[in-house]
């Protein structure tokens, strides 16, 4: 961001805080200062652990991030491998693509009853929900990226007699890298969006559970604080992927 954008961004932030204050002052809804006060309390000792229903916000965030990492990680490995395989088979990819698009459009939360009934374990169900949320964008992007690799690169690999595994690692993945990472970034976003309701509905430890718990305590101020934490974690994760995509980008 350049200097003027930073100034504008900060002013807009202040304006939003002001609007929030004006809208909530004198009502039952939490004001910015109330949320700030709660935040200070929570952040004083973020990693305390006083039993299953009373943990620090840092521990809760770690649970959610762990769930995200597990579901997203497994799904990404599957999606990239399957995507590479599909990308090399244009007819099959074209045939399957409509289904991938349908699956992608379904909120992973919608699968939850079915998954919970099938596996009968809330932890595994939460993992599977995140897995489903992460799978489709990466799969679609990887297949697309691999299908559109310049023929020349593969010809060079063939002329040099590079083995299929080395061709995958040294030619196909770097060539499709930027497209794959763009897919991973979308997947990561949709997985993080899925983690929160999955935890809330399944009662699995984490930020989503915290939101729901505080709602049941009718502590809206804590709910707003949790919302902010969720947003900030999401932004940090997204930033990491932006850096990765910049490293893999190439100009032809």
């Amino acid at each position: 961001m350049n200097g003027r954008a930073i100034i504008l961004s900060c002013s807009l932030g202040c304006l939003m805080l002001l609007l929030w204050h004006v809208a909530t002052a004198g009502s039952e809804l939490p004001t910015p200062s109330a949320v700030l006060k709660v935040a200070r309390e929570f952040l004083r000792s973020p990693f305390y652990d006083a039993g299953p229903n009373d943990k620090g916000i840092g521990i809760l965030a770690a649970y959610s991030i762990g769930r995200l990492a597990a579901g997203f990680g497994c799904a990404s490995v599957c999606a990239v491998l399957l995507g590479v395989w599909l990308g090399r088979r244009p007819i099959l990819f074209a045939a399957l693509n409509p289904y991938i698009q349908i699956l992608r459009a379904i909120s992973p939360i919608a699968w939850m009853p079915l998954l919970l009934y099938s596996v009968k374990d809330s932890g595994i169900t939460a993992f599977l929900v995140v897995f489903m949320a992460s799978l489709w964008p990466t799969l679609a992007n990887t297949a697309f990226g691999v299908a559109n690799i310049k023929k020349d690169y593969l010809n060079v690999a063939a002329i040099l007699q590079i083995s299929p595994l080395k061709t995958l690692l040294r030619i196909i993945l770097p060539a499709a890298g930027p497209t794959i990472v763009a897919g991973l970034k979308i997947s990561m976003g949709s997985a993080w969006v899925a983690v929160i309701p999955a935890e809330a509905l399944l009662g699995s430890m984490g930020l989503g559970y915290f939101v729901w718990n505080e709602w049941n305590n009718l502590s809206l101020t804590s709910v707003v604080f949790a919302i902010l934490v969720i947003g900030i974690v999401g932004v940090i994760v997204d930033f990491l992927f932006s850096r990765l995509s910049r490293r893999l980008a190439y100009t032809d």
Partner: protein
Amino acid sequence: MQKALLEIDHVSRSYAVPGKKEKVTVFQDVCLKIHKGEFVTVVGHSGCGKSTLLNIIAGIDRAEEGMVLVNGRRIDSPGLDRMVVFQNFALMPWLTVYQNIRLAVQAAYPDWEQQKIDERTRAYVEMVNLKGAEDKLPAALSGGMRQRCGLARAFSVQPPIMLLDEPFAQIDALTRGVIQDELIRMWTESDVTIFMVTHDVDEAILLSDRILLMTPGPGARVAETVAIEIPRPRERKRIIEHERYYSYRNRIIKFLAGE
């Protein structure tokens, strides 16, 4: 007579046009024998299928009829014995110049130690005068420097046959001459056999032992062969003074003009 290193035996290629029953023949019945160490060039209009012919020899395209033989053995897939230099360079854009060349050396000599691979890579970086630019990505280089890298990649494998697909078409005229000289030097110093495709008549006369003239497509064929009997080493400035230069040139240009 000496046995041919590369033999093209009645090769034809056609492609299907959507909505039409009849296939369009790109070229037909191309026969050609190239001996070890020769520099043979195909000249023809764009669309006559000369690049397709080159790709068939490279094994990245297929002949519909006929076959390609290397050392008397039929080939139908790409291999390290036929390195290709591409018109658009085909360098990996995510690898530096050095890494692009090293990729080829490593692929060609999988048993070599790292140090030996690096030595060979460095030698070819220097051979094409890319020292100082070896850590740059292709996108940061001019067309001429990219093709130097392409040539180094192909030569570093030390293949018996090299296939050059309009290698100088995307390089500015001044640089083109310099790289042509480098190519001639590398060809002379090795015993590689070169098959090149171009539409530049002067380039063909300067470089080739023999020039094959292809008629315009569709249904192209090799109509004539011109043996260039100008002694080597040939110099760009001096070759145009050779008594036979313009007779070759006129003959080829008249052919291309359809006379």
